Structure formats: structure tokens, C-alpha cells
């Protein structure tokens, strides 16, 4: 009698991590290539400057390279990578500001004056939201960025930032309220 042992298929990340831990550096390169954009854009939204985001993202990967051996649950690699990125960004002492790296993405589809007026209002609203986001406290901004731009669940954000899920939800609520109140002072929503 033969017994068929079925193994649960490993995700690509786990396979690459296992290969890297066996000494295969090109496996780590594949991880860098796979996640470089996500890590870079998270850093960009947290730090606001291209150069700072590039430095922070590479620093994060260097830390990952050093400590990947100690990661117990390899299936949580992505969350752990984000946590390192977040910590690297928070350790930078510069003010977190959005700069010209962020631009509005609007397309012209209509020639009517009302459309242009409305578009101008929307663009002004977006600019104002951008400014208000710059003024958020670091923690609230980080939660807001991860929720809105990275589409992360509150539980994932809490893992990355080392906060309770309730704390993350509270930070998100406060961030949204701050931006909303700031916008309402100038615009009708």
C-alpha cells in the first residue's frame, strides 16, 4: 500500500525566501523586484520626496536582507516588509510633506464652461485635501495612506504599525474627520 503525501503548495514568496535562506541571492533579487514598487510608493506617500523614498525603500530591503533569517512566519512576509518600511520612514526626522511628486489625475472630456468650473473646483478641492493630509499627525497619516492608497485591511495596518485594530480604526476616523472639517471650512461638500 502506498500513501500519497500531498503537500500544500507554497506561495511564491515563501519559495523565494526558502531559496534565499539556502544561499541563493538571486531569489532575494526577485523579491526586491517584486516588491520594490509597493515599498517605494508607500515610502513616497509617507515622506513626500522621491530621493527620500528611494533611500528609505532601499534601506528597508537592506534590513530585510539582514533579518529575513529571523522571520518565523514566512507567509506574513509582506506585512513584515511593510512594517520595516514604515519604521524606516518614521525614523526619518524630516517633516513629512507631499511635494510636486503628487499630481492630480484629471482628464478633459467636455468643452462646457460648467465642466471647467466644476473641474477647477475639484482640482482645488484635491489640492486642499493634499495640504490637509500633509498636516495630519504622523500616525494618522500613515494609517490613512495605507488604507486609501495601499487598500490594506485594518488588521494588516495594525500588524505593520504595531497598534491595536481599534487604535488603527480610531486613527483613520480622526484623520478623515480632520480632513473633512478642513475641507468644509472652504468648500461645500
Amino acid at each position, binding site marked *: 500500500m502506498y500513501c500519497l503525501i500531498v503537500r500544500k503548495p507554497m506561495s511564491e514568496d515563501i519559495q523565494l525566501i526558502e531559496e534565499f535562506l539556502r544561499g541563493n541571492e538571486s531569489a532575494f*533579487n526577485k523579491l*526586491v*523586484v517584486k516588491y*520594490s*514598487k509597493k515599498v*517605494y*510608493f508607500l515610502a*513616497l*506617500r509617507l515622506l513626500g520626496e*522621491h530621493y527620500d523614498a*528611494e533611500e528609505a525603500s*532601499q534601506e528597508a*530591503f*537592506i534590513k530585510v*536582507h539582514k533579518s529575513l533569517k529571523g522571520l518565523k512566519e514566512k507567509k506574513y512576509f509582506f506585512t513584515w516588509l511593510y512594517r520595516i518600511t514604515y519604521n524606516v520612514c518614521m525614523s526619518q526626522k524630516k517633516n513629512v510633506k*507631499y511635494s*510636486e*511628486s*503628487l*499630481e*492630480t*489625475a*484629471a482628464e478633459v472630456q467636455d468643452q462646457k464652461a460648467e465642466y471647467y468650473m466644476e473641474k477647477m473646483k*475639484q482640482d482645488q*478641492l*484635491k489640492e486642499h*485635501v*493634499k495640504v490637509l*493630509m500633509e498636516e495630519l499627525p504622523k500616525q494618522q497619516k500613515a494609517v*490613512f495612506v495605507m*488604507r*486609501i*492608497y495601499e*487598500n490594506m*485591511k*485594518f488588521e494588516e495596518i495594525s500588524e505593520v504599525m504595531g497598534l491595536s485594530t481599534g487604535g488603527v*480604526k480610531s486613527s*483613520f*476616523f480622526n484623520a*478623515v*474627520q480632520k*480632513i*473633512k472639517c478642513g*475641507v*468644509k471650512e472652504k468648500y461645500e*461638500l
Partner: protein
Amino acid sequence: MNCKEIRNNLAEYASGTENNVLASEVAAHLKNCKECTKEYNEILAVLKAAGSLKAEDPGDAFWSGYLPAFRKKMERKIGFFEFLSTPVPVVALSLIAVALLVSPVLINTEIHKKGKVVSAEQAALLLEIEQHYDEYAAILYDEETLKSIR
């Protein structure tokens, strides 16, 4: 849930909650509450405006150079740490550490004897002389030497 509880959860709901129970309760409440619906629409407008802010992609040239730049940075950092683990710095650092530990013992202590400061050598000499003064004084030391020590 009452209006206050609903409003506390509107931000989560508007950003796409994973909690189906919450989503159902909020949706049902909004059907019948104009004030909460107004609040929800304001939050939605804010999130929509924020979500439309695009981060500028640095371009293909940046991404094609990202991995080589990372590897170069890695090599510089590893190079430094590897240097620290080579024999010469290890021996140098060890010697410095040993010297710092031993130096308090090597420093000569000053001994006060009869109101005068003498070295440890002189103090030992004086003790010997005191103990065997009669025996040694005449043989080993002349009076001048004894006076200078005392």
C-alpha cells in the same frame, strides 16, 4: 446602532469595510437617515478626492536601475561590517578593551607616609628598613640616603 455609532463607523464603511455585518447595518441606517447620509456623502467626497491624488512614477529608467543600485548599496554596507570582523580590527579592538580594563591596576598608587608622599617602592624600602633598621641600616644605606627617604 444609533446615529452616533453609525457616524463613528462611516469612515470605515466609506473606505470599504470587510465587516459584512457592519456594512449591512450602516447601509440600512443610511436609507432612513438624512443626516447620516449627508455625513457619509461628505466623507465619501473627501476619500474620493484623496484617492485621486496620484503619486508620480519615477519612470522605467529608475526601475531598471533600482536593483543594481540596491546591490551596490548592500555591498558597501556588507563591506564595512565584513571589515570589522577581519583579524586586524578584532585584535586592535580587543587590545584596546584589555588596556582599558587593566590600566587602573598598572597605575602606581601613591602612599602617604609620615605626611610625605612616597612611591610604592620607597614605601617597601622604608618598611624593610624599619623592621631591620639596626641590621641593615649600617650595611646597606648611608645616612644621606636614609634622610632623603624619610
